[in-house]
């Protein structure tokens, strides 16, 4: 066996024309080389090199053999080798059998029956069962030096192992120490959070971790469930507030006031504390954010239901036309966004208004939460297939009602002030009118302290009422305008209840409920006109008696008779039918005018002492004077009437 000789024991792999499919090839490779995992470059390279070596040799051998061996010789060689192989196999078989016999014989001492089965027949013949035994033989003692060596080596090994074990233990100890430190820090901060009054509980879905409840139990379920965040431990033991997928960062609902196209008032973000990274601050911020998110959600919901008031909603903006040219813009913005803090030309008043709206929305949302709790703890109604409706909260409507109401009330107040001022500037002693704004709010609620807050807030959900009252020129006559603004339930908007007491005109009925302020203006102007007409016509009974009796004391004591008081017309009768004189009074906000003319006046007698601009008519106008002093440079309206009557 000097030269290597390989015999192909496997069938020759023939290269087929068509390539094997990949799975087949993979299976083949698996069979041939074992798992792919064991195949790496190194193995492949070594195999390749080995094969190269073998192949080279084989090739060269073959080349050599081909030269000097013909077929018969090759055959002979083949047979010879084959015989050799068989011989080897036989020999090995024999040796194996011998070994088996030996072991069997040896074992037959202890387990004769079992050993007998593996004994060859020949052995059974020649050797009796159990004739061979084995014994442990003590080896001769080793020399001292070898023993010493072994002891040293084993000692070295042991020391090494001890060392590594000690290192591992120390490592574990320090790791444990660090862990304990971290845990202590974590639990201390958890306790600190708990001591501050936050509710700590296990997470419902993740039983092994802790969570802190900061949300509002009575909020809409989506936001209620967001009010729970897990308290995780960072590697160094510091507390991490894990809010899951909810975006962190504080947001708030910004309220802006817009007049025309100018933003005139804007709320600012809440104060951010200096140590914004402390866990308490993080929790507070998370709570504020979830509150603000819910607030905006509810605002959008409410705004959608208020589309009939002209409220428009976009993705992140609510526009509410409030009153007059005032528009409220609501949006949810990031509190830390610096680009928001651009100073607009803001008026102080509108900023306060914006702040007020913002606060009222938040108070009302908290109030709605309380109402939810109240409703939830009542005995529920029987179960029906219908789902209970989830009405929108009243967050915007009270603010809107307030703004509208105050705008309308101011308008009405100024109107009454102006028109009475016009009358005063014309010399009438018009009594002051009184206005009671928000009269239904001012009736103080004497309630128990527990409910005082809630009843205070719920009173703001009621319709707002203001009352304007005043006496008229005529004795025992007065007027009252009761104004109600209501945004919560229909009829929406402002309603005016105008009532008056005017005994001098008995058939006059109060106009009752009016919805437009123009109508109210007209009603009041008309009422005052009637009052003036009656005043003019009634004067002689008291003061003209003494005034005109001194002057003329004429026989017919002619005076103005209100013939068409609703038209503001009075008549001065004469004996002569051609000389009837008529006075027409018109009253508006800015001016009072008295116009006299002759009815069927044909002769063109000049009348009156004052300006006679035309032949047959005489007009006097009193304008509204904004400066209260300086009674009038002209004569009063009464003097004009007196003069006209006596002319």
């Amino acid at each position, binding site marked *: 066996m000097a030269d290597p000789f390989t015999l192909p024991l496997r069938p020759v792999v023939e290269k087929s024309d068509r390539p094997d499919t990949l799975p087949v090839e993979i299976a083949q490779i698996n069979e041939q080389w074992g798992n792919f995992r064991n195949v790496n470059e190194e193995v492949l390279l070594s195999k390749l090199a080995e094969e190269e070596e073998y192949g080279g040799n084989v090739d060269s051998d073959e080349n050599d053999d081909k030269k000097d061996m013909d077929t018969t010789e090759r055959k002979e060689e083949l047979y010879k080798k084959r015989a050799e192989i068989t011989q080897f196999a036989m020999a090995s078989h024999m040796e194996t059998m011998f070994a088996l016999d030996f072991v069997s014989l040896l074992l037959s001492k202890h387990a004769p029956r079992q050993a007998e089965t593996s004994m060859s027949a020949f052995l059974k013949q020649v050797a009796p069962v159990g004739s061979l035994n084995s014994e442990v033989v003590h080896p001769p003692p080793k020399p001292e030096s070898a023993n010493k060596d072994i002891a040293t080596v084993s000692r070295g090994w042991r020391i090494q192992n001890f060392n590594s074990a000690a290192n591992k233990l120390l490592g574990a100890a320090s790791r444990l120490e660090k862990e304990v430190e971290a845990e202590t820090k974590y639990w201390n901060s958890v306790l600190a959070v708990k001591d501050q009054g936050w509710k700590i509980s296990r997470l419902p879905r993740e039983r092994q971790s802790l969570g802190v409840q900061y949300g509002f139990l009575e909020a809409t379920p989506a936001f209620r469930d967001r009010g729970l965040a897990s308290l995780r431990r960072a590697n160094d033991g510091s507390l991490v507030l894990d809010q899951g997928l909810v975006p962190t960062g504080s947001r708030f609902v910004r309220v802006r006031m817009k007049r025309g196209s100018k933003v005139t008032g804007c709320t600012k973000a809440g104060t951010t504390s200096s140590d914004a990274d402390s866990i308490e601050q993080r929790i507070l911020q998370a709570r504020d954010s979830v509150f603000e998110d819910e607030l905006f959600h509810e605002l959008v919901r409410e705004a959608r239901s208020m589309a009939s008031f002209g409220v428009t909603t976009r993705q992140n903006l609510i526009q509410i036309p409030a009153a007059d040219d005032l528009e409220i813009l609501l949006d949810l913005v990031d509190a830390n966004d610096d680009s928001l803090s651009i100073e607009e030309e803001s008026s102080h008043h509108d900023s306060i208004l914006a702040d007020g709206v913002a606060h009222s929305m938040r108070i009302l949302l908290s109030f709605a939460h309380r109402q939810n*709790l109240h409703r939830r703890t009542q*005995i*529920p109604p*029987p*179960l029906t*297939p219908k789902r209970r409706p989830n009405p929108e909260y009243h967050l915007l409507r009270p603010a809107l009602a307030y703004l509208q109401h105050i705008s309308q009330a101011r308008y009405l107040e100024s109107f009454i002030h102006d028109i009475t001022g016009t009358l005063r500037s014309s010399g009438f002693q018009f009594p002051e009118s009184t206005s009671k704004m928000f009269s239904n709010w001012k009736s103080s609620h004497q309630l128990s302290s527990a409910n005082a807050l809630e009843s205070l807030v719920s009173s703001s959900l009621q319709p707002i009422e203001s009352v304007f009252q005043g006496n008229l020129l005529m004795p025992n006559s007065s007027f009252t305008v009761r104004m109600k603004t209501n945004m919560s339930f229909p009829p929406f908007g402002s309603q005016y209840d105008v009532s008056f007491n005017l005994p001098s005109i008995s058939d006059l009925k109060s106009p009752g409920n009016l919805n437009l302020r123009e109508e109210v203006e007209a009603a009041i102007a008309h009422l005052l006109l009637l009052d003036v007409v009656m005043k003019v016509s009634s004067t002689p009974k008291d003061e003209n008696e003494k005034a005109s009796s001194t002057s003329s004391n004429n026989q017919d004591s002619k005076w103005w008779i209100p013939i068409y008081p609703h038209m503001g017309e009075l008549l001065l009768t004469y004996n002569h039918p051609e000389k009837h004189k008529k006075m027409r009074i018109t009253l508006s906000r800015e001016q009072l005018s008295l116009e006299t003319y002759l009815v069927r006046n044909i002769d063109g007698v000049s009348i009156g002492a004052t300006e006679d601009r035309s032949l047959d008519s005489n007009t006097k106008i009193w304008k509204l004077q904004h400066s209260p002093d300086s009674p009038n440079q002209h004569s009063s309206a009464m003097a004009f009437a007196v003069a006209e009557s006596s002319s």
Partner: protein
Amino acid sequence: MHELLLFASVPTHQHEELLQQLAGLTAMQPRHCLERRLIFKAYRKPGLANARVGASQDLQSGDLQRVNKMLNGGMFYTQVVGPVHTSDFADAGVTPDAPTSSNNDANANPSPADPDTKMDGMDESTAIPTSTYDFDQQSWNLEFRDIPEAGTRSAVTARVMASAALPRGDIVPSMNAWGYSFVTEYLVEGDMFVHNDIVIYLHRVLHYPNSPGEEREPRHQLPAFQQMSPLEKSGSYVLQASITVQDGSNQETMKTASQHLFGLREQLKSAVRLEMADRLSLDTRAK
């Protein structure tokens, strides 16, 4: 209306703990309830003739049939419930029989083994005007409960129920006029929770100090609350979870309701075992 119920027995020592657990579960504070419950029994008024007096079938109109059915239908016990407050009870320091009883043992219990003092102590209620209880202003609610439905597969007690508000004050004349006679009264003390649609009522029955059956009409004055003795001597409570369904014929809602109850049963599994009650123990029929 239908009512679906599950019950559990709660021993006294578990009461406090269960209250806290329920408060946590329902996220609300327990609402303490005290209810006077008067039991009335229906009876057939004598002299009510059977309407079928020799008339042929076709003459009996539908209305008459209905009236007949009502008159001759089953008779039921029904109860009248009146909510009261703790302040309605007499002061604890004043024992009702103290002025009248000649016994010098100053135990607060009106001794039940002393019927004589009780008998001549009938005016005891007038002797102690300490409480602010005004019987004439007591509001009442009539609550009718049918016997639970039989043969239901579901593991909840389901029964027909109805309730109606009654006039204030003395209710017995009205009830008599409707064909009910007063049987007895007791007090139910407990705490109520609301968990979504489920009303959880943890309560127990209290007896008035006098032995029951003595009174022929509802009390006009209430004794001291401390003198009330629990029906169950150990003082254990009953946990009742109920849910009302508007339309009992709607299988869908009934199923939803019982699933809600089962959900609650699962949630409370580690604390109490809620189960359906024995049907015959809730039998309200008057034999």
